């Protein structure tokens, strides 16, 4: 029995992770459960979930920590009880986890920045719409993108960084206001599904020509890429993250040695490559 404590459960990304985990559960014949708090701010709720999970006497445990330190005392307990811990999505400041299955969000966002620079011709105003100001993924994607632009593209100016909570509607209204304030905006990066869709809606509603780069998959993003409204997007491999996490747990239980980090990878997709077979599992709906 392996419980996975994630950072959320309602969003598509996490649902895809769950799907992968459950798939692995079937493949390796282990029971997998999956749960996460409602928002990525609820660090203590996640701790409670972890505690409840430990009470169920699991064989191994998977954790996508909302805070890189808060869970450490509990993880120590798990370690003492001989329960291997697999970190996924983002790591923990400790070597208790036998391995970490993760996407390098910083590098992924940097790739998005490179693409953006290429698409707008290396100069002009751009904006970023991030889902969260305090969560790990939010910070990493924002910083990965911003730092790359600052380091490599001095002629590109980031005029706005705002946070829409991943809420499609609020992100839409937010992006519209930003575009209103910046008539010369040439590019817009949405750092997760909700944010990217918000940007997309805003551009549609304002009938402007802005290069949009998204993050994650989902039906609306894929359609937008296909129709050319969105230049392209980064996709992680959420299904793979879930699958690999469970797989690693099973291996750890068997006593196999695991690498410290299992990079589940990320990829850039756009109209040209999205129908390649390798993308099919990555572009979840």
């Amino acid at each position: 029995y392996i419980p996975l404590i994630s950072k959320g459960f309602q969003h598509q990304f996490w649902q895809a992770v769950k799907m992968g985990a459950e798939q692995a559960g079937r493949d390796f014949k282990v029971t997998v459960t999956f749960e996460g708090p409602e928002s990525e701010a609820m660090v203590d709720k996640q701790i409670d979930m972890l505690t409840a999970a430990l009470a169920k006497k699991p064989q191994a445990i998977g954790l996508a920590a909302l805070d890189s330190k808060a869970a450490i005392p509990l993880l120590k307990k798990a370690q003492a009880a001989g329960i291997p811990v697999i970190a996924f999505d983002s790591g923990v400041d400790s070597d208790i986890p036998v391995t970490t299955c993760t996407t390098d969000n910083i590098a992924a966002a940097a790739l998005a920045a490179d693409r953006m620079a290429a698409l707008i011709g290396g100069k002009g105003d751009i904006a970023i719409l991030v889902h969260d100001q305090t969560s790990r993924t939010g910070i990493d994607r924002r910083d990965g993108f911003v730092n790359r632009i600052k380091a490599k593209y001095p002629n590109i100016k980031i005029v706005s960084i705002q946070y829409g909570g991943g809420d499609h509607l609020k992100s839409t209204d937010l992006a519209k206001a930003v575009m209103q304030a910046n008539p010369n905006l040439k590019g817009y990066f949405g750092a997760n599904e909700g944010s990217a869709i918000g940007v997309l809606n805003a551009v549609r509603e304002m009938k402007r020509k802005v290069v949009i780069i998204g993050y994650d998959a989902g039906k609306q993003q894929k359609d937008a890429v296909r129709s050319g409204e969105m230049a392209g997007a980064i996709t992680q491999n959420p299904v793979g993250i879930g699958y690999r996490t469970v797989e690693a747990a099973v291996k750890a239980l068997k006593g196999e040695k695991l690498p410290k980090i299992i990079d589940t990878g990320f990829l850039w997709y756009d109209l040209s490559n999205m129908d390649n077979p390798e993308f099919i599992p990555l572009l979840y709906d």
Partner: protein
Amino acid sequence: MSTIAEKPVAAASAQKFGSSATQKLLAFGSLVVMLIIFSLATPNFFRVDNMISIMLSTAVAGVLGIGVTFVIITGGIDLSIGTLMTFCAVITGVFITNWHFPVLIGVLAGLLTGSLIGCCSGVLVSKLKLPPFIVTLGMMLIVKGLSLVISGTKPIYFVDTESFNLIAMGTMLDLSAIIPDFAIPNAVLIFFGVAAIAGFILNKTVLGRYTFAMGSNEEAVRLSGVNVDAWKIGIYTLSGAIVGVAGILIASRLNSAQPALGQGYELDAIAAAVIGGVSLSGGEGTILGTVIGAFIMSVLINGLRILNVPQEWQTVVTGLIVIFAVYTDNLRRRKG
């Protein structure tokens, strides 16, 4: 004795009229002041397209605010409106996309769902005499969970029905030939339409009359031989139906039903109503006030964004303005 009373009658009614008119002017005034300040601060603010996007972004919260206005005037509160809106959107999505019903049926299903859940809350509040705060808090959780269950925690896209998106985003009032960019999306028209109908119901019909009377003294209304429970259920049902409209609007605008969205919208809506002068202790309020309240909120947020105020400060300023707006409204009322 009747002659004695005559003079004060005339004087007071003149003053009354004056003060009530002033009140509305003033509420509207603070909105105008805000518009002026933002317009002076940045040239990008006061432009046709931005005004239209402000209206569009007010539509959903505004409709929700109108729905909750009825409940608040009875002396109740409804915390479930945010997640109920989502639930209605999801049901509409299930009907249209999953079950391939025509758009109209889907929309009706959404409205019906809203009415039904509203009705449930109404029954619990009136028949079981439970506090509205707790009933709707429970209902908020229930419909939130059900949205996820029914949608399978995945968004439902309105893929096959082009026309669904037009409910909110099409336009029946397109004057862009005369004034550039002046094409008002249907969502805004629906918002105003709902406001007009709600205003009519609240001011001109028995339902409205009893809404105020119950908020003022429910026991007295009961002892007047009115079937208080039935009317209250009616009011919650109506409020639920209006929330259903908001659900259709948001689904149509996003062209999808997002099951995880919704919580938090109730506070925006309640804030809009209260800023607009609806009294949380019941018995007082207007639809126009709520509409203005909703606009105050969205103008503020839009303006701060256009000014590029950092988001954390936006939150602080919004908090301050919420308190300040209610303060000035109270001042006005005390004078009036």
